[in-house]
């Protein structure tokens, strides 16, 4: 950053000082602030991890009492917790798969083709993202209630899955679309000039190129689904997902195992990202 500037009149010695202070502040203050802000963001995560090693007196894991790893040895010791985690993972996997497929198709349509209904389609994609979760959940609940006589639609895992797919589609579309619109069309046009049909072009050219976008969208959808509480709360009936288990446990004291699972999910997720970055770097090296 050049420092040439028309500076206000002032003593020769005063000017560099002011500038120097300014530049010092500029360079380090912002950095310091960033570190503080990131620390603020990660503080609760650290506390969760810390308290997963706590040995509480009774049931309330709110006061530090002593260090122990016993709960890490037995993370599913609390009845219902293991089932809840399984349910959450199941729903997250399924909803990611389905919404990724549906969403990618939509993104393809919106970016690659011109057609009359594109405005309304865009609107329809955008609306769920502009609706608060509570409204999404509540409206689904009213629908399931309304069509529940005769009893077709008990609230259960299926209804949760339906809800998750619904809100994930929009996020997938936005993510994949961003990737897709940055792609060079020439590659596809070249392929078609060379005689490939639409389908082959898509499969051999487009798809591999947008795969990172689809993967990113899937990761997003997965994390949105596995952590969703509000919409799930409305559509779950008696099914218990991990967030719902936490909510229920918050009343009577969260068992340490919940902290353990929460920290484990965090570590696994961070680990996966780190791995993918390393993998990416390694792939790009011989180039």
């Amino acid at each position, binding site marked *: 950053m*050049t420092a*040439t*500037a*028309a500076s206000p009149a002032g003593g020769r010695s005063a000017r560099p000082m002011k500038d120097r202070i300014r530049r010092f*502040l500029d360079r380090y203050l*912002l*950095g310091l*602030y*960033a570190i503080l*802000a*990131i620390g603020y*963001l*990660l*503080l*609760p*995560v650290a*506390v969760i991890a810390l*308290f997963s090693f706590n040995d509480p007196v009774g049931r309330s894991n*709110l006061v530090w009492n002593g260090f122990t790893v016993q709960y890490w040895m037995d993370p599913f010791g609390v009845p219902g917790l293991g089932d809840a985690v399984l349910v959450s993972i199941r729903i997250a996997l399924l909803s990611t798969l389905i919404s990724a*497929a*549906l*969403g990618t*198709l939509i993104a393809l*349509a919106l*970016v690659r*083709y011109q*057609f009359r209904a*594109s*405005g309304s389609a865009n609107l*329809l994609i*955008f609306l769920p993202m*502009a*609706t*608060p979760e*509570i*409204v999404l959940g*509540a*409206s689904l609940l*009213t*629908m399931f209630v*309304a069509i529940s006589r005769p009893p077709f639609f008990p609230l259960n895992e299926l209804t949760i899955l339906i809800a998750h797919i619904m809100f994930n*589609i929009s996020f997938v579309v*936005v993510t994949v679309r961003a990737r897709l*619109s940055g792609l060079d069309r020439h590659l596809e046009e070249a392929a078609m000039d060379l005689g490939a*049909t*639409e*389908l082959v072009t898509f499969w051999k050219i487009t798809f591999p190129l947008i795969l990172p976008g689809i993967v990113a969208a899937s990761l997003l959808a997965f*994390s949105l689904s596995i952590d969703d*509480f509000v919409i799930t*709360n*409305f559509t779950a009936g008696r099914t218990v997902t991990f*967030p719902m288990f*936490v*909510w229920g446990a918050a009343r009577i004291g*969260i068992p340490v195992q*919940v902290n353990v699972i*929460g920290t484990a999910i*965090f570590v696994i997720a961070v680990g996966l*990202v780190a791995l993918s*970055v390393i993998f990416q770097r390694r792939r790009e090296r011989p180039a």
Partner: protein
Amino acid sequence: MGSFLHRHRSAIPYLLLAPGLLWLVLFYVYPSFQMLITSFWSGTLETGFTFSLSNWTTYPEALERYSTQFGRSILYSATATLLTLLIAYPLAYAIAFRGGRYKNLMLFLVVAPFFTSFLLRTISWKIILGDDGLVLGPIKDLGFLDPGFRVLATPIAVISGITYNFLPFMTLPIYVSLEKMDRRLTEAAEDLYAGPWRPGGTIAGAIGGGIVGALMGFSFDFSLLPAIATGAIVGGVGGTLFLNEAFVRVTLPLSLPGVFAGSLLVLIPAMGDYVNATLLGNPSTNMIGNVIQSRFLTNADYPTASALSFMLMIGILAVVAVYARALGTENLTAGRGA
């Protein structure tokens, strides 16, 4: 198959759209419509519900009865959005312009909290801010605070919770728009407008600070005048120190799309939030989300709950529309190459 597709080219987009859009129609549009219908029901779960257009009175009744909670949701969301903006903007700026090779790492760290359950994070604040907890406990032991002092179960805790939870949502869009900026523009700006923005920085800072102070005072139940004064002073000082002309004239306007996106991403969920209010608040901090949740799940008062929910939805859509027009940014929905 390939040639079939080729011949029916014009149908392809519709075929691609069909499954996904159908899902959205079935499970977003229809439920919203059903929610509207439900709001015209009367009765109870035990005696059965009946539909009647004359039940439109549910709307004004619900609005009147819960106007406090509605207002509170708006107030808390607005305050939280402003606070997030204040915290996130410098953070995004730091990452974009000072990040260097740590950029991706910092971005990752900003998003990392989302890898834990948001409920657990909020409960974590309950531990941290507990009356005798990690922060307040030692301070009280040292005698600096009255033992009756508390942060939990106050509006401060609720708004702080909302701010914390949605901070990354504000940071990322601002970062993206700052990152995309042509560096030559900023450099040119630096050359052209080098130096602090006087007296604009002070004035803008003071006004901005005053507004933030007012909002915070209002939400936190502090007396307004001192709050505004403090805000104005802090804002004025901050503006003088940190607002330089290059930034204000070039960087800031170019980053507005990010600011807009980020604000929406915070405002919309914050309006409907009830988790923070439940875990960190008290009966006088209940937001409209708490009411809707209670009406639906505890009382099965579907008509009132649906009416409230519907009004919330329309309200938010209205805000989004107005906001879009005011900021003049390109139509969000036509997002070719977002």
